[in-house]
C-alpha cells in the first residue's frame, strides 16, 4: 500500500515534469532514404532470399518476393511509418531483452518498424521485418504486454509461417486439379458461379483454418520466448484480453464539453443521429463468418496460453516504476503520432477523435493537442468549401462504436460556417503559449471568420513568442505579397 502510494506520487510528478522534456522526443521523420541501415539490411536480405530460391515455382516465388519488396518500399515512401528515436530505441531495448534471454535466436536478423496505423495490430513480413502499429502501443498498458506481442511476431519468423503460406498459396494457384475443377464448373450451363464459389470457399476455409493454427503455434512459441525474459509472464494473457476488447472499450471524446464555449455554445443538433435502414444478417452468414476468420477467437487463445504458462514463473511482481514511466512516455509519443498520422492521411474523423481523447487525458496545457485540433478543423473547413471533405470523413454507421459515431454525426450535421466558428472560439479560448501550432491555427481561423484585426494580432503574437518558428517564413512571404 505504501509502495503503491509512493508510485502514485512519482507518477504525478512525472506528468508535471513531462511536458518540459517532451519536445525533443517528438522529432519524428516519416520516411528514410535507401541508405538508412535498416533499409540497407532489408535490401540485402531480399537479395539473399531471392538468390537462394531453389524451390518449386521459383519464378513465381521471385515475383512475389519482388512484389513484397516493392510494396514495402512504397509504404516507406508513402510515409506509412514513423521514425522516432525514442520509439525506436524503446522497441530495440525490448528486442534486446528477448534476444539476450533466448540465445538461440540471437543470430536472427530482425528489423522493427513503427506503422502509423491507429488499429491495434502487429505483423511479420517473414524475412525479419516486423511492423508494430501505433494503435497497438496505445492500447496496451505496459512494456511486458508489448514484449509478449513482439515474441509472438518473432515466433512467426522462427516457424517460417510466411514461407509456408507462400508455398501453400502457390500450390493452390498451380493446382491442376483445382484449375480443372473450376474450368469444369465454368462450363456448366447452370449454377456455374455457385459451383466455383463452393470450390473457392472450401479452399478459403481450409486456408483460414491453417492460419488459425499458425496463430496458436505463434502464441505457444512466443510464450516460450517470453517466459525466458524478465517480463511479467501473466501480462501475455492480459495483452490478449486487451486485444479482445479493443473494439468495445472505446473512450468518449467528450466532444460536447471540449468544443463548447460561452460565445458559441455546442448545439445538440450537431450530434443528432439518424434512423438507418438495415437488413440483419442470417444466422448462417454469421456462422460462416467465424470460419472465415484468419485469427482464432481471443478467448480460445487466452485459454491455451493460460494452460501453457509455467506457473512457477508466474510470480507476483510489480513492474518497476521506471518501466511504468517509460512506457507512459512511449505511449504518449505514439498517441501524438496517431493524431499526426490521421492528419497527414486526411482521416479527419479519427484525427479529431484521437486529438480530443488526448485533450481529455492530458489537459489543455499540452503544446500539441490544441494546435492539432485547430489544424484538423481548419483543414475540414477548406475541404468542405471545395466539396471534398467527404473523402476525409468516416460516414455515420451502426457498425461504429457510439463514441466514434458521435464524431461522425458531428461532421454530418455541422454546417460550413459553424465549423469555422467553433474552431475560432475553441482556439481563442485555449491558446497555449508554448504551442506555435495553436497560434498559427488561430491566425488561420481568424482569416476564415473574417476577423482581420484579430488575425493581425495573432500573427504579431506568434512572431513575438516564436521568432524562429516554422511559420515565420510564410508570414514574411505574405508580408512581401501585401
Amino acid at each position, binding site marked *: 500500500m505504501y509502495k503503491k502510494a509512493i508510485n502514485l506520487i512519482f507518477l504525478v510528478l512525472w506528468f508535471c515534469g513531462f511536458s518540459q522534456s517532451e519536445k525533443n522526443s517528438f522529432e519524428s521523420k516519416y520516411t528514410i532514404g535507401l541508405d538508412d541501415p535498416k533499409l540497407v539490411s532489408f535490401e540485402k536480405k531480399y537479395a539473399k532470399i531471392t538468390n537462394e530460391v531453389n524451390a518449386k515455382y521459383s519464378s513465381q516465388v521471385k515475383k512475389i518476393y519482388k512484389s513484397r519488396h516493392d510494396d514495402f518500399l512504397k509504404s516507406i515512401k508513402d510515409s506509412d511509418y514513423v521514425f522516432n528515436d525514442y520509439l525506436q530505441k524503446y522497441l530495440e531495448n525490448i528486442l534486446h531483452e528477448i534476444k539476450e534471454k533466448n540465445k538461440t535466436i540471437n543470430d536472427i536478423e530482425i528489423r522493427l518498424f513503427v506503422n502509423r496505423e491507429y488499429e491495434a495490430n502487429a505483423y511479420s513480413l517473414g524475412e525479419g521485418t516486423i511492423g508494430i502499429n501505433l494503435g497497438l502501443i496505445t492500447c496496451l498498458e505496459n512494456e511486458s504486454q508489448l514484449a509478449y506481442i513482439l515474441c509472438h511476431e518473432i515466433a512467426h519468423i522462427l516457424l517460417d509461417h510466411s514461407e509456408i503460406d507462400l508455398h501453400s498459396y502457390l500450390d493452390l494457384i498451380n493446382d491442376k486439379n483445382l484449375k480443372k475443377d473450376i474450368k469444369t464448373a465454368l462450363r456448366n450451363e447452370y449454377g456455374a*458461379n455457385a459451383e466455383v464459389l463452393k470450390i*473457392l470457399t472450401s479452399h478459403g476455409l481450409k486456408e483460414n483454418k491453417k492460419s488459425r493454427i499458425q496463430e496458436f503455434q505463434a502464441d505457444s512459441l512466443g510464450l516460450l520466448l517470453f517466459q525466458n525474459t524478465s517480463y511479467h509472464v501473466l501480462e501475455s494473457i492480459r495483452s490478449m484480453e486487451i486485444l479482445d476488447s479493443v473494439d468495445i472499450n472505446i473512450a468518449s471524446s467528450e466532444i460536447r464539453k471540449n468544443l463548447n464555449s460561452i460565445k458559441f455554445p455546442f448545439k445538440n443538433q450537431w450530434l443528432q443521429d439518424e434512423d438507418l435502414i438495415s437488413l440483419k444478417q442470417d444466422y448462417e452468414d454469421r456462422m460462416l463468418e467465424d470460419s472465415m476468420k484468419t485469427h482464432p477467437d481471443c478467448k480460445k487463445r487466452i485459454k491455451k496460453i493460460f494452460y501453457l504458462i509455467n506457473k512457477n514463473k508466474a510470480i507476483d511482481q510489480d513492474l518497476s516504476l521506471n518501466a511504468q514511466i517509460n512506457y507512459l512516455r512511449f505511449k504518449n509519443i505514439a498517441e501524438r503520432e496517431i493524431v499526426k498520422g490521421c492528419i497527414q492521411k486526411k482521416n479527419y474523423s479519427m484525427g479529431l477523435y484521437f486529438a480530443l481523447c488526448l485533450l481529455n487525458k492530458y489537459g489543455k496545457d499540452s503544446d500539441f493537442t490544441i494546435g492539432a485540433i485547430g489544424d484538423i478543423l481548419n483543414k475540414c473547413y477548406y475541404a468542405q468549401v471545395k466539396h471534398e471533405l467527404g473523402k476525409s470523413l468516416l460516414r455515420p*454507421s451502426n457498425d461504429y462504436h457510439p463514441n466514434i459515431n458521435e464524431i461522425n454525426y458531428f461532421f454530418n450535421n455541422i454546417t460550413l460556417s459553424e465549423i469555422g466558428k467553433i474552431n475560432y472560439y475553441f482556439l481563442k479560448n485555449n491558446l497555449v503559449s508554448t504551442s506555435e501550432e495553436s497560434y498559427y491555427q488561430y491566425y488561420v481561423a481568424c482569416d476564415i471568420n473574417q476577423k482581420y484585426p484579430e488575425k493581425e494580432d495573432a500573427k504579431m503574437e506568434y512572431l513575438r513568442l516564436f521568432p524562429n518558428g516554422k511559420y515565420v517564413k510564410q508570414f514574411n512571404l505574405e508580408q512581401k505579397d501585401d
Partner: protein
Amino acid sequence: MTRKIKLICIGLLLGFAHFGSSQNTQFSGIVKYSSKGSGVIEENNDISGYYFFYKTDKVDRKNNMYRLDVVDKNLNNAGSKDFVDSKNLLLLDAVYNGKAMLFKFADVKTKELIFRYIDNKGIQFKEERTVIESKSDLMMFYYEDTYSPYKNLYSIKDKGFVTYGTKDYKKDGYYIKYMSSNKDSKGWTYVSEEDAEQFQTSVYFGCNDNVLISLVSKRKKYLSRDVDMFLVGHDVNSGKKMFETKVENNEFEYLPTNSFVDKNTNQTYIFGTYFKKGDNIIKDNSLGFFTAKITNNGIVSGYKYISWDVDMKKYLPVNDKGKVDGLGYLFVHDIIRDSKGNVLIVTESYKKAVSGVGIAAAALNGGSGPAINFVTNDMVVLELDKTFGLVDAKVVDKSKNRYLMPEGSAFWDVQTMAYYMKSMGAFDYRYTTSNADNSNINIAYVDYNKKEMKGSYLGVISYKDSKMSVDKVSLEVKKADVDYMPAKVGFVAITEYRKKEKTLDVRMEKLNY
C-alpha cells in the same frame, strides 16, 4: 489464374466485401458500369438508401440467382438478399415507408408485377403478384426509373404503398392498387368502370392520414386535348371511394397539378394553374397559380390566386400570359411546404425559339414547318407565405440549354411542348429532397459553366429554416467520369468512375449553406 477465373473471383470478392465503412465506398474490378438495375430507396421526400440488383448465376433453364444489395443513406452496406427467380425478372423500383421496404419487380415473360415486402429486419414477409393485362403498362417497364417521369410507386408513411396502372377497355381505364405494409392486411384495388364513355388515366396526387387522392384525366378521344381533370379520393384503409370531384366554380377553369398535406392539421391543399372560364386547360395560357383546400369528402374551398398580371408582376417582369421577360414560361416541377408553413413552388423557365441549324436541315430534307428549339433557362422559386400569398420570386442563374424539337412541333402550344420535353428529360431540374419536418429542403439541377465551375456541376438550391442559399458541386475530375446520385437531404452522392483502374468511388459530400 486465367482471366476468366480472376474476374469471377473479383466478382465473388465483390459479393463478400465490396462496401467499406471508411471514407469512400470503392468498387473495384468494374469492367462495365451501368446504372440500370440500381436506384434510390425513397422515404417520402428523402432518401433512405440505395439498391443494387444483379444476376449472379444461372440456376436452370428458367431461373437465375439474383442478389439484391441494399445500402443505407450513408452508403454503408445494409445487407443483401440472394434469391432464385425467373430469368425474365426486372427490378423497377423500391420505396420505404418507415416500416417496410417494397421492391417492385416485373417478369416480362409471364407479364406479372411482383411486389416483395421486406421489414426493418430484412425479412421478406409478403409477396404479391399481379398479372399485367395492359399493353401500355408493359411498355412502361422499360422506362420506369426512380427519378424518371414514369415514377409509379409511392410510399404512404407507416401504412403502405400505392401504384397505378391501365385497364385495356374499349376506352382505356385505370386501376389504383394500394398495398398495406401491415403483414395481415391485404390492401385494396380500385378499378374504373369498364363501360365508361371516356378514356381515363390516373396518377398519384397526394395522401393524408385518411384519404388517398388521385388525379384522373378523362377525354372522349384518345388524342383529344379536351380533357377534364378530377380528384378522386379513397379511404386509405378500406379503399372505399369517398369522392370524385372536378375542381371548378363559376369564376375560372382549374388544372390541379400538385398537393401537400399540413401534417399538424391533416388538411390537404391543392395547387395548380387557373384559366379563363371556358378556356381549354391543356391548350390555352393560364392566368396564374391557384391554391385551395380539399376536405376528406372532396369539398374544395378557400381558393387563393396568384395572377400573372397583378401578383407575379410585383416580383418578375411577366406578361398576362405568364411569360417572364428574358426567361420564358415557368414549368412547375414541385411544390413543397416548409416547416414554418411557407410554400415553395419550384419552377424552371423555358421558351421555344427558332433553330437556325434545324432550318437548314429541314430545308435539305424538305421538312414541314420551321425547326424549333426548346430552350431551358434559369430556375425560379416562388415563395408563398402561410396564407398562400406570393411574397417573393427568387431567380437562380443557370445556362440556357437548347433541344431540337421534333418535326411539326412548331404548331404545338407551349404547355404541350413543356410536358413532352419533361417526358424526354430535357429540363435541368433533377430532384427535391427534404427532411422529415421540411425544415431543410434541397432542390437540385444540373448545369454547365466553363468559367466559374470549369464544366458540369450539380446546383442545389437549399432552404434551411426558410433561408435560401445556392451551392454548386463540381462534376469535373481529371481522368474520371464523374456523376451524382440523389442523396439524403443536405448532401449529394458523387461517383467517380476510372475506366483505366476499373474502380468506382462513391462518396457523400455535404452541401454548403
